[in-house]
């Protein structure tokens, strides 16, 4: 939790622009237009508003709404915009669906491109050179290390993300979830499920 005040210990003199920001905040606070607590709350929310819940909501919708699923697979950007997601850097989102015979896995071999508007920040392993190399050279072994055992009949498709195209895996809806609501379903969808390194479980 952040402290309720904007007063910090300064080890160096504040820059001119910092003083300007403080003066503006003080003026607006004096007029009752902003409060320190309200600003703190926004900053804290935004700094923590990074997680896979947006992607999970997209998958949850796709699981209950076949027409939405089709739109998602046909045009990822438009479909996630329907739920209010996207914006800068979400350009060219491509959703790829797992099926009984196809499993999708996402990697960025060059760096760490990632569909962050949907999944938040990438995990450390996603950025690691071993994952980036081995996801391509031996995806089945990598998946096994993540605890995902796939039958020999399942083809693994590896998608290399870039600044231009980012991928989202739409996992298969688990069996036994027939009576669940969209929200309950979304709660089953973890970050790793949407990268392809895990399968959703009840």
């Amino acid at each position, binding site marked *: 939790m952040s402290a309720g005040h*904007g007063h*910090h210990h300064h080890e160096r003199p*504040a*820059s*001119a*622009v*910092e*003083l*300007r*920001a*403080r*003066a*503006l*905040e003080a*003026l*607006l606070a004096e*007029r009752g*237009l*902003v*409060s320190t607590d*309200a*600003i*703190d*709350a*926004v*900053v804290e*929310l*935004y*700094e923590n*508003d*990074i997680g896979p819940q*947006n992607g999970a909501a997209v998958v949850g919708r796709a699981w209950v709404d076949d027409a939405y699923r089709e739109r998602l697979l046909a045009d990822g950007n438009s479909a996630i915009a329907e739920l*209010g*997601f*996207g*914006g*800068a*850097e979400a350009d060219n989102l491509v959703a790829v669906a797992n099926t009984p015979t196809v499993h999708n896995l996402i990697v960025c071999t060059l760096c*760490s*491109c*990632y569909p*962050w*508007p949907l999944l*938040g*920040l*990438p995990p450390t392993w996603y950025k690691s050179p071993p994952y980036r190399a081995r996801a391509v050279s031996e995806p089945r072994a990598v998946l096994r290390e993540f605890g995902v055992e796939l039958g020999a009949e399942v083809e693994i498709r590896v998608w290399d993300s870039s600044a231009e195209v980012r991928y989202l895996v739409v996992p298969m809806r688990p069996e036994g979830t027939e009576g669940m609501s969209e929200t309950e379903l979304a709660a089953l969808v973890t970050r790793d499920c949407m990268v392809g390194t895990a399968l959703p479980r009840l």
Partner: protein
Amino acid sequence: MTGLAGVDRALGDEAALPRDNGELVFEEPWQGRALGMGVVLLERIGAPWPEFRRHLAAAIAARGEPAGESPATTYYTAWLDALEALLAGRDVAGYGTAGTTTSGPSASGSSAVSKSG
């Protein structure tokens, strides 16, 4: 309160928040507070985001890319320009008439403080 995704949408590409692979970039605490101040202020005075976005885009264009200044510093300095321009345009909080700043973003941009050191 407007969520971060809503802010991203409202700002679009041309005035997008500085990020590093998804993570908001705040080099110094004042930058995060400037963002929070804008969100709270717009909500409080009922100013629409497109109005703020126009001011912000103009301020970003006016500032350009000053040498020796980080992109986040330039962006959030423009953000302050835009907040002041918004207040001036709406004659709120003493801006616009007897205010601390003059008029639009270009005016405040040209008279703006620069980072020392």
